[in-house]
């Protein structure tokens, strides 16, 4: 009779050692310097790579098992969504604008993060770090794919989803997210890690994924909740990797502190600007809202970010330089953004709208110090113009910030009645900025940012200022993908189909 031998299982710490450290080797015929040429030029000093350890101690065998389970759960729901007309369970089709921005601007960022982690997994010498970066590279490509796949169900019925790749490459507002990731990917491996692993994943993704995805659940969007939470289950690991890496750098050598602090300052501000889009999605684009951008910032920015920086203070790290300016912007940014999106809606592959009376009541309750005073009067004016048959459209092109590439629509920290504008001259050329944060970043690395491709100047240099030709080039269908939600094809279709789904006429 066969006896099944029960081999003693390795403990988690032992298994982690065997499946990371034991996979490495000492090179025999090439020097380490030749194999890992990119780890020194940023100035970060590392004395012992083995000190880096993944606190989850996740090994590849377990990784595949759990990721497969996540995929099974994801596809079970995506199939159910497609089979049961899930798109008609949405609160209303205004919600889709948030998804279109997500697909055009954020999903391609996941793909960029995949490329970045694949690269730095090769560039870092430590085996534990290599394994963690490899997992994250696979996670990120999974996120891009599952997001695109989930949202393809909406592309069958609604406008603005069909050309996300062209939008990613060419349309103006997506260049904000693209320049963020291009900036990170063209940096060295340690800076990339701070940019994506720490600032974006640890400090900022909670603001993007958690309240927004919970919002998707509130708005009946099963498909997005699913890809959101499926992606977010990986983010906990990514955040932990980011935090471990920063602690590792700070523990390895005291000389690393000023370099790391500089990157934290830079990438907090870069990330905060990208998340401006999310503030508008949360405050304006979810027909049913879980919490305001302000409330999300209190939980995930002030409370959680504050805890993090108090923890890192033992290494000499202080909160990012732009932290106070960010706090001053919180009660204004979503309104300033939405006003911008509405006036330039001829050039967006999603719809925007004038908030309803109910929406405005909610906004004034959530923003008691700012909404009624600064923003309600503007919406009231815009509403009047629309009623008079002369809707407010701004066919002028926005001045873009050379660093974050957002239109300069923000106000001075501390004075919401004055537009914030900075400029600097470099090698005889004038450059424009939306804030001190962006100007400081430029001035630290001018040779990098003067190479930025800015969509507004490109409209003139590449297409002679011809807006119709530009729409063709970015695959924007005028009168379908863009403009006011009120009167749009999306609105008409959604109302019609939902009516069909609930009656026999």
């Amino acid at each position: 009779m066969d006896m099944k031998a029960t081999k003693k299982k390795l403990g988690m710490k032992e298994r982690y050692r065997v499946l990371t450290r034991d996979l490495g080797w000492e090179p025999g015929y090439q020097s380490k310097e030749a194999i890992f040429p990119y780890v020194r030029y940023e100035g970060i000093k590392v004395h012992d790579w083995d000190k880096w350890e993944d606190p989850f101690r996740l090994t590849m065998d377990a990784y595949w098992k759990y990721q497969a389970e996540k995929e099974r759960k994801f596809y079970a729901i995506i199939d159910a969504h497609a089979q049961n007309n899930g798109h008609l369970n949405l609160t209303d089709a205004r919600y889709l604008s948030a998804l279109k921005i997500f697909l055009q601007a954020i999903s391609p960022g996941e793909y960029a993060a995949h490329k970045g982690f694949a690269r730095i997994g090769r560039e870092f010498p430590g085996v534990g770090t290599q394994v963690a970066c490899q997992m994250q590279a696979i996670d990120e490509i999974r996120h891009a794919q599952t997001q695109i796949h989930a949202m393809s169900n909406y592309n069958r019925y609604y406008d603005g989803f069909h050309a996300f790749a062209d939008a990613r490459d060419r349309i103006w507002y997506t260049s904000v997210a693209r320049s963020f990731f291009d900036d990170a990917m063209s940096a060295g491996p340690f800076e990339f890690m701070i940019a994506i692993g720490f600032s974006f994943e640890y400090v900022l993704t909670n603001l993007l994924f958690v309240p927004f995805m919970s919002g998707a659940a509130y708005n009946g969007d099963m498909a997005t909740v699913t890809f959101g939470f499926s992606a977010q289950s990986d983010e906990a690991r990514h955040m932990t990797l980011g935090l471990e890496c920063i602690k590792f750098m700070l523990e390895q050598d005291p000389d690393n502190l000023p370099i790391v602090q500089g990157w934290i300052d830079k990438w907090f501000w870069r990330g905060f600007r990208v998340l401006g889009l999310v503030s508008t999605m949360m405050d304006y684009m979810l027909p049913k809202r879980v919490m305001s951008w302000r409330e999300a910032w209190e939980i995930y920015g002030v409370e959680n970010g504050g805890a993090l920086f108090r923890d890192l203070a033992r290494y000499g790290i202080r909160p990012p330089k732009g932290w106070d300016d960010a706090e001053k912007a919180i009660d204004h940014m979503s309104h300033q953004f939405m006003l911008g999106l509405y006036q330039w809606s001829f050039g967006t592959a999603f719809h925007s709208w004038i908030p309803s009376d109910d929406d405005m009541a909610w906004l004034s309750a959530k923003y008691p110090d700012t909404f009624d005073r600064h923003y309600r009067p503007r919406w009231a004016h815009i509403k009047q113009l629309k009623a008079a048959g002369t809707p407010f459209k701004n066919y002028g092109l926005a001045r873009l910030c050379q660093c974050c590439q957002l239109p300069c629509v923000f106000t001075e920290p501390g004075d919401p009645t004055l537009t914030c504008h900075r400029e600097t001259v470099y090698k005889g050329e004038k450059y424009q900025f939306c804030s001190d944060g962006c100007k400081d970043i430029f001035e630290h690395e001018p040779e990098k940012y003067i190479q930025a491709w800015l969509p507004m100047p490109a409209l003139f240099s590449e297409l002679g200022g011809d807006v119709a030709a530009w729409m063709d080039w970015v695959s924007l269908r005028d009168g379908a993908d863009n403009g006011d939600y009120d009167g749009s094809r999306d609105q008409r279709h959604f109302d019609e189909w939902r009516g069909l789904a609930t009656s026999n006429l």
Partner: protein
Amino acid sequence: MSTVFIALQANEETRPIIDAIEIDNPQAVVNRQPAMVKIDAPGRLVVRRETIEEQLGRAYDLQELQINLITLSGNVDEDEDTLTLSWNE
């Protein structure tokens, strides 16, 4: 004291896990939000395999948490028996 937290998807698998976390962390506050549950605790939160197994009625590998984890905050330390979140202050 800074808050640590863990957020899990709200589903059948996590219900006993959340119960276990509440048992092991009497100071924790459970916030139920659409589709998710966020558990906050002052300074430190411990997730114990044994307590989860008692609530679940089967053997449990703590790494299974990865499947339903949404986010967390704090320094992580994990072995076979516990997952600990903490801030150093």
